[in-house]
């Protein structure tokens, strides 16, 4: 069976794409953010996952309000990035992992998560930037299964439901008949709010508590309603749902035992409290 080796998390602010493109990683503004990645890259170089399952939220590239799935699973041979309207460079396509995509879809529906399946799916910065941050050099060495969670239009799925989805995805990975090594990725957050008079809202205390909970008490954040999460983390901070899905997947892999490989937290990039994290499963 496949091996679930760990989970990664990172923020995905579009401006990161511009910074990478312009080579600004060592500029004073960017350095505290990019410094979070070398320890994670070292761990990846040593542990070499073949496949990643990416929990992310689309920002209006693939999905519009005409058809807005709560949970959508990619089942495409490759995933194309495209113009998002604000001038960040478009990245070359990423390879899919069809067998795992369909195994996840079959497992999720069996477990009563009635997901939307996508044999074609554009992926936006939220899916592409983590790959570029974790594997900055050359071609991306992993294949990808993107899982998109709606954070655009309310009602959003609850934290409890998203954690359970992640758990089911973890069980699917562990029961996949393959010798491949798989990692799960959370893309998004942490606290930030782009819209309204409350724009610029950041909640460091909550973020730090949440990051700690991912190690020791992974279900902590499932006590909150989506409304409470918005109140605590901002309208876009609710992207921490992706991190809960990632952590849910790991819970299935090794009890709830994980080891923190590396973690970084920095305020601000753009309007956002950023984080980068790697957790490895412990047998």
């Amino acid at each position: 069976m496949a091996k679930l080796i760990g989970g990664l998390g990172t923020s995905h602010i579009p401006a990161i794409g511009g910074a990478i493109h312009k080579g600004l990683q060592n500029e004073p503004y960017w350095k505290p953010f990019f410094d979070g990645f070398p320890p994670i890259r070292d761990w990846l170089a040593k542990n070499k996952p073949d496949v990643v399952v990416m929990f992310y939220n689309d920002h209006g590239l693939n999905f519009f309000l005409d058809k807005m799935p709560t949970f959508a699973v990619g089942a495409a041979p490759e995933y194309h990035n495209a113009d998002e309207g604000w001038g960040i460079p478009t990245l070359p396509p990423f390879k899919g992992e069809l067998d795992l995509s369909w195994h996840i879809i079959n497992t999720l529906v069996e477990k009563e998560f009635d997901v939307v399946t996508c044999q074609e799916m554009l992926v936006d910065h939220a899916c592409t930037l983590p790959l570029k941050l974790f594997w900055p050099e050359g071609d991306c060495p992993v294949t990808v299964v993107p899982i998109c969670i709606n954070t655009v239009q309310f009602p959003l799925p609850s934290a409890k439901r998203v954690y359970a989805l992640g758990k089911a995805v973890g069980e699917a990975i562990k029961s996949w008949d393959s010798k491949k090594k798989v990692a799960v990725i959370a893309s998004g957050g942490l606290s930030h709010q782009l819209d309204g008079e409350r724009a610029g809202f950041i909640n460091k205390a909550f973020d730090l508590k949440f990051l700690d909970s991912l190690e020791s008490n992974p279900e902590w954040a499932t006590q909150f309603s989506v409304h409470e999460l918005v109140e605590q983390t901002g309208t876009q901070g609710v992207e921490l749902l992706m991190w809960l899905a990632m952590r849910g997947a790991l819970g299935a892999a090794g009890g709830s035992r994980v080891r923190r490989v590396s973690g970084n937290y920095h305020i601000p990039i753009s309007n956002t409290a950023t984080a980068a994290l790697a957790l490895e499963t412990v047998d």
Partner: protein
Amino acid sequence: MSTCTEEKPIPGTTLFDANQARKGYALNKMCFSFNSEENRKAFLADEEAYMRKYGLNEQQAAAIRARNVLQLIAAGGNAYYLAKFAGIFHLDMQDIGAQQTGMTKEAFRAKLVAAGQ
């Protein structure tokens, strides 16, 4: 219609719920179209014709003309699609944040930095 957003408002925050989604559909559909460079150019070439094509109501059209984010949200705009409209004018998220909070960009930045202390 009952939604959780009406039960316990969060100050300075409009959740994009069913009411907003219904109200803002035409505006958001237009902003979604700005993923395409051809459409961005068509908008800049003739804003009024472009807005008519998407059937914006007067409140939405006025907010677009004013480039005013709070008015756009009041007219049903969603942050993710509005960001594509802002992108046409090369405004970044700190420009948008400053506009909505009535601060200078420098003051808005300082507020963000302070949140990290």
